[in-house]
């Protein structure tokens, strides 16, 4: 089977410390793939390495073409987009200005649809620093989605959101994957979001691959429970 986005033997070492070792993962169009694990498991490092934010080991393929080591801007123009663990927007620009900026940089097309889907119409002409944190997270998601990316790497998009806001976000993620046929890699600590939207889960522990399966398979997996809680008891 040919996957849209393939990551092979991704690794990262900081000094002598191995943060990530030989993690491989494939993404399919229209599917949300969850990447979970306890703190320090290497989830964000994985996204940072494959997106070119930080140098690392391993190989990355998009549509069977190797893209290892290409610049972040080239990756985005190729159709691979990402968000960041911390809200990464432009506080002094209006929501409209930054969506247009993203639209122009990424090759554009879907801004009106995005604004409607994410419910940002009412704050379009407001500077991003003036809107609520939940809305800022949606702007962050909009910036990643502008230009119809084929692959979306999301680093904890629900961080800091309330339960109702996380539920709304989950709905958006399902819609993005299914309606726009995007391959989504979702790093997330909120298990309600993970179990609602992910079709496949990969679990990391201490920088290494632990197990992969469907949410139903992994919900009661002893190895996963041990990785999170230190014991299956």
């Amino acid at each position, binding site marked *: 089977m040919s996957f849209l986005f393939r990551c092979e033997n991704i690794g990262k070492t900081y000094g002598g410390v191995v943060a990530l070792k030989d993690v491989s993962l494939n993404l399919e169009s229209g599917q949300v793939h969850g990447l979970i694990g306890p703190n320090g498991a290497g989830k964000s490092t994985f996204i940072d390495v494959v997106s070119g934010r930080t140098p690392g080991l391993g190989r990355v393929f998009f549509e069977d073409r190797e893209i290892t080591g290409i610049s972040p*801007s080239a990756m985005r*123009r190729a159709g691979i*987009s990402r968000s*960041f663990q911390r809200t990464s*927007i432009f506080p*002094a620009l209006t929501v409209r*200005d930054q969506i*247009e*900026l993203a639209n122009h940089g990424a090759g554009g097309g879907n801004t009106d649809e995005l604004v409607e889907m994410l419910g940002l119409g009412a704050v379009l002409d407001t500077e991003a620093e003036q809107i609520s944190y939940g809305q800022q997270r949606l702007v962050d998601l909009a910036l990643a989605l*502008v230009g119809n990316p084929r692959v979306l790497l999301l680093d904890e998009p629900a961080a800091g959101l309330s339960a109702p806001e996380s539920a709304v976000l989950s709905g958006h993620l399902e819609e993005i994957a299914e309606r726009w046929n995007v391959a989504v890699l979702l790093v997330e600590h909120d298990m309600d979001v993970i179990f609602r939207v992910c079709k496949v889960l990969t679990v990391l522990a201490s920088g290494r691959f632990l197990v992969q399966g469907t949410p139903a398979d992994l919900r009661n997996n002893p190895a996963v429970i041990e990785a999170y809680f230190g014991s299956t008891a």
Partner: protein
Amino acid sequence: MANQTLAHSFRESPILRPSGLIVLAILTATVAILTVTGSRITLSLLAQATIISILALSVGFLARTADLISFGHAAPFGLGAYGTALVFQHGIPAEVGIWLVLVAVFALFFLIGLVVGKLNGIAFSMLTLALGQFFFVAISKLRAITSGADGLTVSLPRSLFGLPGRTYQTPDGMFIIAAVILAALVILIYLFEASRTGRLAIGVRENEERVLFLGYRTKILKAAVFATSATIAGVSGVLFALYQGFVSPEIVHWSFSGNALIMAILGGSLAVWGPVAGALVFFFLREWLSDLTEHWLAVLGVILIAVTVAWPGGMTGVAKVLRARISGRGRKGGGK
């Protein structure tokens, strides 16, 4: 959406807000009164202040657009001034020569920007300080070209850019010329900020990594912003040379850059007009204090420290607070 945004940004441009118009009106009225009633010395001060406010504008533009503090903007200022002097000394047609000087300043500082643009914060400031001093030493030592510490005189032709040459060396003539150029530059900066490229520059200032992950390359843009800022300083240098009729290495010294930076800090960078207002206040405050005491520099230093501590946003910060209070009162009043 694109056209709407451009219109919206221009509408929201601070110069078109009531507070911007009030500031503009106060400045225009003050200048008009001084022009009509002021002595020749006052007019001369006003002309010098307007020329140097263009230098402060260039420093403020860099701080506002790229969040970069330059300690070396005397270098492009000096290159503009020396370039102008050399144009006249070598009999190059001035209308072409002065433009070539400005193009050369842009090109040189674009190349420098490609290197120093990788740096931020203190590292950038220190590198610009070193660069500025490099140009100071080079101009001081290259006696065959610059006459070293003796400086160069600028002999104006009968006519320059359609105006009699002597107009550039009279206080009222130069004040009007410098004020028109300053106004044009301020408007151009506002238009730049309202443009897509301007918003991209603000995006780079606020979150360069995100801009890269939106598919942009930022290196060229950062170098272009640095070079544009340097060219504005170069324009100030050209006017300085035309008005003073003489250039010497002191205008490339780091202390000259420091003065421009002080003016920009005094005015603040929350609005484009901040450094201009800062330069005007600095100039007249310096003149007033130097009449009062020979230790005027110490007094000026204390005032600057007090202003910086009390109003970190400078004059633009004060204006912002006042505007917020007035509009807050207005809203409360409206709600009753």
